[in-house]
């Protein structure tokens, strides 16, 4: 029986607790929060053995095998290092760490201690993301990715959330190097990192404050971001984050030398884009029918998943946690290669370095290319 603990008892901890309790062969032996009442409320609502206000107490008394870190990102590094030093495997919610160097330290420490780490990039393990991965692994693209586009949007339309961090000058989101973006864009960047091959892609970032956020007084919080990533071997990628565009996309497009794929996270659909063209007017008649057929097939798959009770909101997290635990039990590689975690952290760091260093200037900033260090 794998003994699990959760550190940090806020909103996302609820999702972790509810997913962990679905998985057989594990139990939550303790939850911890520096605000003991928060730990207590989680303990009251889930089958958890004990609650703690001190991390050291949790580790020494509950002796967990795995610790899920669901605290604000500023504390991820210190808590993860502490847990690794105690001999625990660690699942760190996104963003993995504030700085890429901290990610490197944690991975080195985990390797040194023979422990496992993973990052909360659970969108990559949704039903549709796994279908896409299988197709890519089976060679559907016809070779390495030529170009990718990742869209990750976030709705600030309900000003409640925006007002919460705008109204609180001490809100932890404000103190992140990348502020709002730092807490949100990991999923979209991790999708690119999965298919990038080099350790040092070039990153160009351009960000600005939307008129909506300005109207709420958030002049120093960037909520619109466009990024170009390019590798020496010619692979390129675009990343778009927007709080204002509609529809609010959570989409990933990947194009290879032969074919392409479009993944839509919200609709749980995967569309194949065939690279070959048909002759003459057939190109205007046949592909729409093929697309219609693919969409119908997606509907059927989603209905089947729903009937099989697999179309849950947090199916990706559930799968990631289960895979992580399996890798611990069986000694197999963790579900997210460390290379991807590091690359995601490095790309994010480069983005924030470019856009946040220039915040006082009002609007559009196109930065000179910066090369990420692989060291």
């Amino acid at each position, binding site marked *: 029986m794998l003994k699990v603990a959760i550190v940090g008892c*806020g*909103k996302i901890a609820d999702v972790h607790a509810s997913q962990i309790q679905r998985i057989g062969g594990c139990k939550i032996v303790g939850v911890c929060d520096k605000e003991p009442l928060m730990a207590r409320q989680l303990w009251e*609502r889930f089958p958890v053995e004990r609650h703690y206000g001190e991390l050291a107490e949790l580790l020494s008394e509950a002796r967990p095998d795995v610790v899920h870190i669901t605290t604000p990102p500023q504390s991820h590094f210190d808590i993860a290092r502490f847990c690794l030093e105690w001999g625990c495997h660690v699942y760190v919610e996104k963003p993995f760490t504030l700085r890429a160097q901290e990610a490197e330290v944690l991975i080195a420490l985990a390797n040194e201690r023979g422990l496992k780490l993973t990052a909360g990039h659970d969108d990559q393990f949704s039903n549709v993301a796994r279908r896409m991965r299988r197709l890519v692994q089976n060679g559907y693209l016809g070779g390495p990715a030529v170009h990718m586009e990742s869209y990750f949007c976030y709705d600030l339309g309900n000003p*409640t959330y925006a007002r919460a961090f705008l*109204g609180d000058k001490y809100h932890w989101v404000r103190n992140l190097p990348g502020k709002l973006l730092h807490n949100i864009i990991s999923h979209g960047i991790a999708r690119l990192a999965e298919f990038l091959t080099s350790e040092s892609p070039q990153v160009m970032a351009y960000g600005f404050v939307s008129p909506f956020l300005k109207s709420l007084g958030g002049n120093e919080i960037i909520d619109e971001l466009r990024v170009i990533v390019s590798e020496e071997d010619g692979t390129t990628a675009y990343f778009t984050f927007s709080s204002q565009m509609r529809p609010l996309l959570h989409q990933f497009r990947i194009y290879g030398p032969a074919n392409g794929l479009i993944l839509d996270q919200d609709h749980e659909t995967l569309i194949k884009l065939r690279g070959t063209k048909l002759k003459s007017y057939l190109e205007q008649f046949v592909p729409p029918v093929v697309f219609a057929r693919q969409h119908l097939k997606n509907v059927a798959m989603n209905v089947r998943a729903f009937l099989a*009770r697999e179309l*849950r909101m947090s199916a990706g997290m559930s799968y990631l946690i289960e895979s992580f635990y399996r890798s611990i039990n069986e000694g197999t590689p963790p579900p997210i290669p460390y290379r991807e975690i590091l690359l995601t952290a490095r790309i994010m760091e480069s983005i924030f370095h470019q856009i946040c260093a220039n915040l006082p200037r009002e609007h559009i900033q196109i930065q000179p290319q910066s090369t990420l260090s692989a060291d």
Partner: protein
Amino acid sequence: MNQAEQANFIVRKNDPILITGATGFIGSRLVENLLDRGFCNLRCLCRPTSEVTRLEELSGFYRGGVRVEVVRGNLLSRKDCTAAMEDVAVVFHLATGRDARSFPDAFMNSVITTRNLLEASKQHDCLKRFVNVSSFTVYANKQNPRRRLLDETCPIEGDGRLRSDAYCFAKIKQEEIVAEYNRRIGIPYVTVRPGYVYGPGHETITNRVGIDTFGFFLHLGGSNTIPFTYVENCAEAIALAGLIEGIDGEVFNIVDDDLPSSSLFLRLYKRDVKHFRSLYVPHAASYALCYLWERYSEWSRGQVPPVFNCSKWHAFWKKTRYSNERLKMRLGWKPKISTEEGLRRYFESCRNGKGHA
């Protein structure tokens, strides 16, 4: 405020009174109510981004030694709470977390904030009463036979999480922590549980009437009485709960007289505000919907969240009558605004587009 009335109060008009949530729907009316009563040393704890123009206007309007102090701060900060509580004789704690979906957020913004205020009051040791503003949502309403009266003696929800309503859970825990501080260190308190507070500035139609979750309006209330309280009547009751002597530890439900049925309310709304299509769901059918939804949610292991469930049906859509007898008897409260007049003002506000259903 006349002399006889003041004689029954636990505070003098110059004593500092703290109001949390003072810029909110009820809070702003409470401030006016207290000023009308002659209290002239009010402190309003407001978020840094809260709009306080109205409070500043009030301060200017009453003049003559009246002090409406706006303290910017966050109830999650113990330091801010300690500063706000200094020398305070009565606290009206209205600020709350309204998010019904996230349990941790609702808990943090209701319970942690309340705990911080209680701790701060312990430090200053001059508090005469802590007015804990709770909600009707805490009542389980399960053991009551149909048509039975719901009053302050009815049991509250034993397990708030079963209703899958974070607000309900947080309010139950908030009441618990206030009672705990009373037991442990003797902080005097009164709990008020308003029904559905309505009026200009809050124009949504309560779920007790119906929901539009599925893209059209399902009328679930039918002939049920809706526990309305007009915002100024509610503010009056809360003010009295903080001032009247000899009521420590008591609980007061706040509902108005002459409450309309859900059907009547909906008919008037359609007539006076705007017409829209609604589908009446009989009680048996709404119960069946809640029961089946809850069972499916359980079977599917949360594939759909249990937002409709039997506990919720009992609390929201079961036929129930409400009492304000204790409020009248113990506090001498009577509604300033009749329900007829309250609804007229509310519909007018809806018509003017200040809100929407």
